[in-house]
Structures are given as structure tokens and as C-alpha cells.
């Protein structure tokens, strides 16, 4: 077994084919690669296990839980998390689809890549920067619009007002999230649009379709499920985004659909960021429990998005 597999310098013509020992390098390398992959499985299992472990006291404790019970604590936060993410998605998806089409089918060929890069730059801005920008610039810029909405569309519950004087509303937070998920959805949508089989497109054009008709009949049907899953991946990202919301929102932990007033629901992620550094005792466990809830929700959303992609067979 331990004999060398072959002579270091094989004499041309006289060497013979080595038999016996296997080379160790292959086994070691393969083992390392497999171990690395397995480590990832363990890490994810560990994330779930440790979060559960540490949130367990929140369920069993006799101590006072903030705001009475776990449900009363996490419920409004959950509501706010979903509300902000939905606002982000409703704003970002149409724009992202538009940009995706613009870059894939409308922009001049030579400029398209550069323009795509500009959109990608949006993803390169750190979340803390978006947060401060949202709190300082965007909320100010939105003030006149909130005022107008409250005055003219106040009969719609969403805009019931009274309009926030600081502009730091859940709607502003949703807009910041929209800007943050925009490059993600755009990049995926663009790739899917570009994957439309050239044959389908040319078939439509050969029938005398205008560019828009070609997109409507060839590109959009092909890309529909891909765009849906891109939006869901964006949703997963918006649900978990922390700093932008933590910096923008003035939180009062209510459940309300009023998007432009001073009283806003918080989000789970932002709440953890704001409370955790000073939390102690069972409050820590309650925060971790809320983190677990967030983990489960984003897991489900991402899972659904992947499932849609896998089912439709479009490569995202």
C-alpha cells in the first residue's frame, strides 16, 4: 500500500503501468470539498436550531413580557413588516419590469450594458446610507405629497392622515425599500427578458408586429413566471431589510393601514436593531423569537419563489 505509485522520472519506453496504491491527493481533496458543502448544511441547521433554542425562554417564561404576550408583541411588528414590504413591492415591480424591458429591448444596443450598470449601482449603496438618506432627504421631499394626499384623497383609508409633519412614515420606509429591491428585481427581470427565444421574437416581428406587440405576445408570456419569482425574491429582501426602516420610521407599534400619519407600525428587523443593543433578560429572548418568525417568513417566501422558477423551467 505504501509503495510509491510510480517512479518520479519515468524512463521513456520502459515504464510500466502503475498498479496498487491509490493516490492520496484525490481522496483528501474530495473529502475537503464534501466537508465544505456539508458545513453549509450544518450552518443552516444551526441557524434554525440556535434561534429556536434562544427563543424558547420567551415561550416558557413567567417574567413579564413587553406588551403582555408574545403575540401582542410580535403581531403588530409582523403587520408592519409585511405592510412595508408590500408597499416596496407594489412600487418597485412595475418600475423594475419597465427598466428590464428598456435595457433588454428598447435602449440602443451599445448603451444598454452601461445603462444596466447604472441600475446595478443602486445595489452597491450600503443600507445604512439609504437609511440616513431616507430619513433626511426623502421624508422631507415627500412632505408636500403627503399633505396633498391627506387633503384630497383623505377619504381613502390609506391616506386618512393627518399627514405626518416629519415625513417619516411607513410609506417613506416602503419607498426606501422599493429603491433597495429595485436593482435586484430589475437584474433578474432583465436576464429573463433576454432569455426569450430569439425565434419567438422573430416570428412575431415577421408577422408585422410592432415592438410592443412582439413584447406582449412573445416576451411577456415567456417571462411571466420568472418575473413573479423575481418579485418574490425582492419581497424576501424587503421583509428582512433592517437599517433603512430603523432610521426612517418613527414607530408607535400600532396596526393601521394609514400610510402617511405619525403613528406607524414598526418592522421586526428594525425593532431588533433598535431594541437589541440595550435589551436584557427575557426581552432578549423575545427579540430572538421575533427574529425566528422573520426567518421563517423569508424562508417561505424564498422557497415559493424558487419553486415557481423550478416549476416553470426558466433559468433565473
Amino acid at each position, binding site marked *: 500500500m505504501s509503495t510509491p505509485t510510480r517512479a518520479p522520472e519515468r524512463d521513456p519506453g520502459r515504464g510500466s503501468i502503475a498498479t496498487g496504491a491509490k493516490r492520496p491527493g484525490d481522496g483528501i481533496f474530495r473529502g475537503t470539498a464534501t466537508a*465544505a458543502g456539508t458545513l453549509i448544511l450544518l450552518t443552516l441547521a444551526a441557524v434554525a436550531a440556535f*434561534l429556536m433554542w434562544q427563543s424558547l425562554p420567551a415561550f416558557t417564561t413567567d417574567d413579564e413580557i413587553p406588551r403582555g404576550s408574545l403575540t401582542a408583541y410580535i403581531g403588530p411588528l409582523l403587520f408592519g413588516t409585511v405592510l412595508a414590504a408590500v408597499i416596496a413591492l407594489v412600487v418597485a415591480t412595475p418600475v423594475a419590469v419597465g427598466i428590464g424591458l428598456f435595457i433588454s429591448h428598447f435602449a440602443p444596443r451599445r448603451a444598454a450594458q452601461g445603462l444596466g450598470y447604472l441600475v446595478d449601482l443602486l445595489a*452597491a449603496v*450600503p443600507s445604512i446610507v439609504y437609511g440616513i438618506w431616507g430619513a433626511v432627504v426623502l421624508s422631507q421631499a415627500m412632505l408636500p405629497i403627503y399633505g396633498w394626499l391627506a387633503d384630497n384623497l383623505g377619504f381613502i383609508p390609506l391616506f386618512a392622515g393627518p399627514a405626518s409633519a416629519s415625513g417619516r412614515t411607513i410609506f417613506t420606509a416602503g419607498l426606501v425599500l422599493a429603491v433597495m429591491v429595485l436593482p435586484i428585481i430589475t437584474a433578474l427581470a432583465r436576464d429573463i427578458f433576454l432569455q426569450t427565444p430569439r425565434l419567438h421574437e422573430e416570428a412575431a416581428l415577421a408577422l408585422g408586429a410592432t415592438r410592443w406587440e412582439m413584447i406582449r405576445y412573445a416576451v411577456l408570456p415567456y417571462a411571466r413566471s420568472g418575473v413573479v419569482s423575481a418579485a418574490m425574491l425582492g419581497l424576501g429582501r424587503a421583509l*428582512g431589510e433592517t437599517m433603512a426602516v430603523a432610521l426612517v420610521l418613527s414607530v408607535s407599534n400600532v396596526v393601521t393601514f394609514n400610510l402617511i400619519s405619525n403613528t406607524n407600525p414598526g418592522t421586526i428587523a428594525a425593532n431588533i436593531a433598535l431594541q437589541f443593543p440595550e435589551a436584557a433578560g427575557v426581552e432578549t429572548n423575545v427579540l430572538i423569537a421575533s*427574529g425566528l418568525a422573520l426567518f421563517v417568513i423569508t424562508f417561505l417566501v424564498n422557497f415559493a419563489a424558487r419553486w415557481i422558477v423550478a416549476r416553470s423551467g426558466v433559468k433565473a
Partner: protein
Amino acid sequence: MTTTTGRTPQPSQDALAAIEQPLSKAALPRWAPWGVLAAAVVVALAVLLPGGTSVAAVAVLAGLLHLLLIGVVSRVKEGGRKAADRLVTALVTMAFLIAMVPLVSVVWTVVSRGAARFDATFFTYSMQGIVGEGGGGLHAIWGTVIVTLLATVISVPIGLMTAVYLVEYGGKSALSRAITFLVDVMTGIPSIVAGLFVVALFALLVGPRPRIALMGAIALSVLMIPVVVRSTEEMLKLVPNDLREAAYALGVPKWRTIVKVVLRTSLSGIATGVTLAVARVAGETAPLLLTVGLATRTNFDPLVGQIATLPVFAYYQYTQPGVPAQAGVDRAWTAALVLIILVMALNLVARLISRYFSPKGGR
């Protein structure tokens, strides 16, 4: 088609006339969209100027007018189908321009406000003993470098080897499919949850609430590993099988083929992916807020004591600026500016690597 009856039905003359289209039709000149846009801007200015106005208001009104005008003009002159086409062209172009608004606004805001403290002091002083004005972010810059570097050191080997396993060894095995699926799931883990995980882990290992750089690095690794795996996997798949076979046919063992041929060939792509992954986690705030805390002086020990990082530094300088408040807020903006420059530079480096170091060839 049914061929049971002897006579095939013929479309009527009217129907044929409806299908028939002339080769040339009335069309708007090439400059029409620009002309309409100019008209829209002029009208918007004329309407809004008397009451005092802002750039934003003019842009919004001009945009809407442009949509309306181009639709109507094209419909009258070119017919409904062409009008729809022009309308959509205008809409998607606007979608792109809308996306540029926050980009320009963010960059402009950060640059203009961050410039105030973008000075030598900021890059040479920490916040040790600083109350009020002065001080700098040197400690935070070091902290970000240390934590990010540590995260890279942890993530790259694991991510790289996992990708090698998936592409070169795993095939369609159950383990390989499970890893692929969970890497996808990991990509979606909220960053704050990654932070919580590390807190929970260390609470179990070393007791309650330590805050050290290593924890932050592990939290960032949880976010970074899936990105590295994903990009490396794509790059390894791009290496043509021909090259692997060429090496095998030379009597090269599989692991050497992977290291010397496959990884070597995809090196620039992998480097690009890793750089982008570093750029992504370098700007992360939430997990660091929970795991590394903040310090006022430079801390080079990743195992002992809290450590300042640029994002967390910016966060606290903005939310708890001290007295006078403006000094803290200025420092926050400058920290944000440094962070943005750092991340954008990493992105640029990634593009340069992929452009100049990828293998060139005739194929």
C-alpha cells in the same frame, strides 16, 4: 385542417382588404419624440412657473404631458398600434429615468454633506477622548477592514470548496441537491437574523453577550458564503469540459486538474465574484450592530473587545450625535461617504478584474 369536404371556404373580399396593408404609411419623423418632449417641458414650465415651482414638479408634469402628447399625436397620424408602441417606449424609458432619481439624489446628498469632514483629520484620528467637534473615523475604517477581511478569510475557502464539490464531485447526488437548495435559501436570510444567530451561538459558547470582531465576521460569512458559492459555481460550469478531458488525457489526477486547470481558468471570474461578495457585506450594518458593538479607539484584536466599523459608526453618529449635534451628523455623513466610496471601488475592481484578467482566446 379538415379535408373532408371538397370545397375549401374562401375569405370574402372585405376580409382580404382588411388584412391588406400598404407598404408605406404615414409616420412621424425621427425627431418626433424629442420634439414632443421639448413641447411638454415648455408647457410644464409655462403652467407651473407663475406659482413658483420646483424641478421635481416640472419633471413630473412634463413627463405626464409627454405621454399624453405622444400618444395622441401618434394615434392621429400613425394609428392605434403604432401609438401603443410609442406609449410603451416612453413608459419604459421613464421607468429607467425614475430609477436614476434616487441614485443621483443619494450620491449627491452623501457627497455634498460628507465633504464637510472629508479631511485629513477624519482619516488620521479615532474618536478616543473626543467630545463634540473634531475626531475621525480611522478606528471605524480599520474595523471595517478587519471584520470584512476576516469574513473573507472564512467564506472564500468554504464557498470555493463547496462550489468545487457541487460542480466537480456532487453530480446529481442527494447531498448535492440539498446543498444547492439550501444555498439558495441562505441567500435570502435577512442580515439581522444572521447577526442574531451569531449572538445566540456565542451566548451558548462563552456566556451572555460578548461583542467581538470575530462574531461580526462569522455573521457576515453567513451572508457571504452563499454569494461566493453561487458565483464560483457559475464560473466553474463555464469551464469547457474539453479542458478537463485534455488534462485527464495527459495523465493528470482529478484534484490537480481541478486546481491547476479548472480553478486556474476560472480564476478571474471567481475573483470578480468574491470581490462583489466582499462589496456586498462591507456595507452591512444590522448584524454588526448586534455582534461587534462600537468602540472609540482602534482595536486590532478580533477576539477581545468591541470594535468600531464604518456602518455602525455612521449609525450611532447620526442617531446619537452628541453636542454639538452638527459635528456628529457631519461625521456620520463622511463615514457614509467613505463607505460608499469603498463599496463602489470594490465593484469597480470587480469589473476591472473580469475585463482584464479573464483568459483571452480565439474562441
